[in-house]
């Protein structure tokens, strides 16, 4: 009988709050991303946006994006100033859960619709989830493409019928998205 023994080296490092480890970073700027509730004109609902995901653009170290519920903003850092870039769509219609950068000025985000009309349409077609995963391709602040994952996901309708109605609201939602290094 051959027993394979892996050598494990354990080394515990206690993190000491040493005064020397406290550092002096330069505060460049502070940005208040959310300025209060917004109203979705389609549903007449008031939504308080919040940031769910934040990332720097890998192709430009001064460009960053903040997405969240009813929120999509791109900022550019110039010296001590943070300038908001123009977005040519209404972010309050959507709940963005995550995003990833594809190329310069291209960004791929996933959204859940707040639009009642769209939800009704999904009910008629899929007879399943009320909130569906979409993937947006956004370039230069405009939506270039909207990929509906409803078409590519198979739902077990019998399974959904046996579940309480609220359990399958997020059946098709995506929680993470990533781009390949080779594009």
């Amino acid at each position, binding site marked *: 009988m051959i027993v394979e023994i892996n050598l*494990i080296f354990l080394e515990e490092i206690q993190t000491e709050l040493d005064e020397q480890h406290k550092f002096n970073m*330069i505060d*460049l700027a*502070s940005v208040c991303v959310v300025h209060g509730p917004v109203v979705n004109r389609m549903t007449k609902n008031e939504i308080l946006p919040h*940031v769910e995901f934040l990332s720097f653009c890998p192709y430009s*170290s001064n460009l960053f994006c903040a997405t969240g519920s009813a929120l999509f903003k791109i900022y550019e850092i110039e010296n001590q100033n943070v300038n908001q870039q123009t977005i040519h769509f209404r972010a309050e219609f959507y709940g963005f859960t995550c995003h990833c950068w594809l190329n310069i000025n291209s960004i791929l985000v996933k959204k859940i619709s707040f639009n009642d009309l769209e939800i009704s349409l999904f009910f008629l077609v899929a007879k399943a989830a009320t909130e569906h995963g979409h993937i947006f391709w956004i370039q230069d602040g405009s939506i270039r493409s909207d990929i509906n994952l409803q078409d590519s996901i198979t739902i077990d309708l019998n399974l959904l019928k046996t579940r309480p109605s609220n359990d399958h609201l997020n059946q098709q939602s995506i929680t993470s998205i990533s781009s390949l290094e080779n594009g």
Partner: protein
Amino acid sequence: MALLKEKKVERFKMRKLSLDQVYGCSTIHRHSIIGLPDNRVAFLAGSYLIILDCLTNERRYLSFSAIEYLYISTSGLLMGIIDRFTQDSDTRIHLYSTKPIDLLFIIEPDRFGNFIGLTINTDDTILMILHNEPGYMITIRK
């Protein structure tokens, strides 16, 4: 966490993964596992952050109070950890270098409340912190 080893299957001319080892990993929070340079991974196990060398199986343990967020910079050289150290959800950020693992900075809570997210730009020159009060503030530090 399962460590998978890649095997090449000549018959089908495709690669397959086989289970090699299994480790305990806390997954209550998102961002609980990150890849480090030089075939290493860092993952949460309770209040410890375990840094595992996948080739030699060497492990290093970093002790914290309650890690809420784990981040690796795009360059792979910096690792950020948001640690909740009081019952009142006060958080601080620990910034480590990854080669070697060494504590660089600790950022204490400031005027904008607790930290809930951080990101570092590709040049490792700008640190951006997401706060929960008031109304999701972002502070940018160089």
